[in-house]
């Protein structure tokens, strides 16, 4: 049992091998972060399609889509 590596040692190993490949500088990380946010915000800020209004109406109805299993 004592020879079994502890979880912390295992994750340390993973971190180390990751660090080698993930040595992105701050500027690159920031550029990627900005693009990720843009990608997400594009949809986030888009108007909600009408189909969802319709869905909500159905969900509110007793015995509708939202009831039962």
């Amino acid at each position, binding site marked *: 049992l004592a020879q079994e590596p502890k979880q912390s040692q295992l*994750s340390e190993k*993973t*971190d180390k091998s*990751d660090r080698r*490949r*993930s*040595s*992105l*500088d701050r*500027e*690159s*990380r920031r*550029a*990627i*972060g*900005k*693009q*990720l*946010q*843009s*990608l*997400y*915000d*594009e*949809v*986030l*800020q*888009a108007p*909600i*399609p009408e*189909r*969802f209004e319709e*869905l*909500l109406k159905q*969900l509110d109805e007793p015995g509708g*889509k*939202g*009831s*039962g*299993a």
Partner: protein
Amino acid sequence: MAVSERLRADLIASIPNLRAFATSLIGAPDRADDLVQETLVKAWRHIDSFQEGTNLKAWLFTILRNEFYTQMRRGSREVGDVNGAYAARLATHPEQHGHLDLDDFRKAFTKLPAEQREALILVGASGFAYEEAAEICGVAVGTIKSRVSRGRVQLADMLSIHEPDTIGPDAIAASVLTARRS
């Protein structure tokens, strides 16, 4: 169903976030919306299992994610379709041609495995902490961290984003940026 007014409003308010997350997993807008719709129906049905006061967004994201992977296993979703759908959307955003082009970024992003895409989006765009993202994905925090960093490195490789000491135009751009900051 016994959905309180307050909770109903919160559910509706979370639709844009659900759509944004679904799009990062699927790409094709109509398919992403199908996934959101299925998520909302599930959430409504199982609303009793949600504890009011806890993180509704995280709860919904978990449902959406589970639904996505269940369907993927069933093979009812063509995940490879992500690329084409994004390309179609490309035409609707001709105004975005910045320093690092968003369309190029989108193309690179769609090439990442789903597990890296979701980790990057959860932590980098939808505002979840690493711990919350780990809970949503049902993995350890370290796994999320490593998926995020591997995803970043892959994106940087695909987009030729180099470290500042790399020789080339990027190095010059980086040094200009650094100089401007100081």
